[in-house]
């Protein structure tokens, strides 16, 4: 489904991604963990070319794009096969919740207005915002905004949805409502790559956990195994820092 091969990314002289290989199967939910600055966001953004990798190959389905010489058409195609949910929501500020969801359907997918509206309303109802169709982002709470962001991604019916720390900008009491929505989507069998620090979510929902550090994938595997018996010392250290109960014994 998604195949990343030898993805390399530099910011100036700083190599942020080092020969990353990652394959995600259709319907799989992959959670990416790792300390801040390890390259998780950059990796996710390389998949839809918000960041241009310096070398490697990004493939989604039949479409394989060599990062050395991607054409505009290739980049466009990769973006149309994916959708992204951003840490800071990035809703279109000047559009209502409904318009935010409709925008891509009308402008990019060329759906008729009525059809786009119907589909958008349906998806917004699914994320529990059927009563907020005409609200502007500035009139919504963080949790509601992020649910619009998820609806915007979902409505496009992409082959995969990329989530970049979807709950880390939220007040703690809003995290649950957004995770709940993501959990429900995961059950529908949509391919997802989720960068998150929510361990409970990773344990329950992920088919696979990928641990990154310093621009490389240190270890990946079944969440039960990674969380209980990580092979690598770096993974162990990270999990120890991030899981509070592990610290009680000190």
């Amino acid at each position, binding site marked *: 489904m998604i195949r990343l091969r030898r993805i390399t990314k530099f910011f100036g002289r700083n190599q942020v991604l080092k020969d990353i290989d990652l394959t995600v199967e259709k319907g799989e939910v992959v959670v990416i963990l790792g300390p801040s600055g390890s390259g998780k966001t950059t990796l996710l953004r390389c998949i*839809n*070319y*918000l960041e241009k990798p310096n070398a490697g190959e990004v493939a989604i389905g039949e479409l394989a794009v060599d990062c050395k010489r991607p054409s505009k058409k290739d980049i*466009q195609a990769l*973006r*149309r096969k*994916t*959708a*992204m949910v*951003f840490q*800071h929501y*990035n*809703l*279109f*500020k*000047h*559009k209502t919740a409904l318009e935010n969801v409709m*925008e*891509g359907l009308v*402008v*990019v*997918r060329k759906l008729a207005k009525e059809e786009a509206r119907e589909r958008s309303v349906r998806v917004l109802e699914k994320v529990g915002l059927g009563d907020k169709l005409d609200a*502007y*982002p*500035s*009139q919504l709470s963080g949790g509601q905004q992020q649910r619009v962001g998820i609806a*915007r991604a979902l409505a*496009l019916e992409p082959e995969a949805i990329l989530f970049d720390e979807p709950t880390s900008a939220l007040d703690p009491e809003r995290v649950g409502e957004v995770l709940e929505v993501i959990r429900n989507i995961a059950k529908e069998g949509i391919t997802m790559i989720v960068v998150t620090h929510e361990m409970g979510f990773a344990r329950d929902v992920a088919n696979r956990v990928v641990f990154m550090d310093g621009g490389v994938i240190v270890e990946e595997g079944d969440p039960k195994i990674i969380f209980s018996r990580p092979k690598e010392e770096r993974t162990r250290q990270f999990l120890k820092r991030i899981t509070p109960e592990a610290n009680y014994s000190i």
Partner: protein
Amino acid sequence: MKLDPAFIWTAFVKLLSAVPTTLFITVVSVAAGFLLGTAIALFRIYKVPVLGPLSAGYVTFIRGTPMLVHLLLIYYGLPAVIDGVSAAFGWSFRSVSIPYVVFALIAFTITASAYLSEVVRSGLLSVSSGQLEAAYSVGMTTPQAIRRIVFPQAFAASIPNLSNSFIGMLHGSTLAFTVSVVEINAKAQIVASTNWKYFEAYIAAAVIFWGLTVLIERLAGVLERKINIYNRGGVA
């Protein structure tokens, strides 16, 4: 000197006939200057080779020289260029057949384009990169993203500056009288020339300009409230 209040009213009524000319010059030069200024702003923001640096030079030159100088340069320079080109190609067209107002329109468009390019540029830079990224993430092309997402937000943020520029150009349009265009200011001079009541005539002109300015401010205010309903934040 004795003030003749009755003549202020007489002049006021007579000056009204020049209001359309003033508005025409202002609106056309602001509209054309806005389009040109937008292109200039995009060349600069996207660092287009050749056009980008050229635009930057153009903006510093135009903003660094008075509006009256632009008008005089166009008024005296353009006919020579046009006649030269026309002669070289053997056309019968001569610059004398160009109405004076056209020189004013061209010169003021140039003036406005430089100032408005800065207004547009700051408006565009006020839109966060996350908006553009979100547009890309749903599959939009760059032109689609700029047209649908960036421009509307930049425009909303620019309304106060646009309104200021518009008022500046309205007041600046009085310079057109130097190339024999009868706008409000020139009309005041004409109206007063028969009886030397210049003070009264210019009071009437001032009142008209003030009224037009207030009108522009009001319209901008209404537009801003209408367009900015999505913006609940800010310091206000």
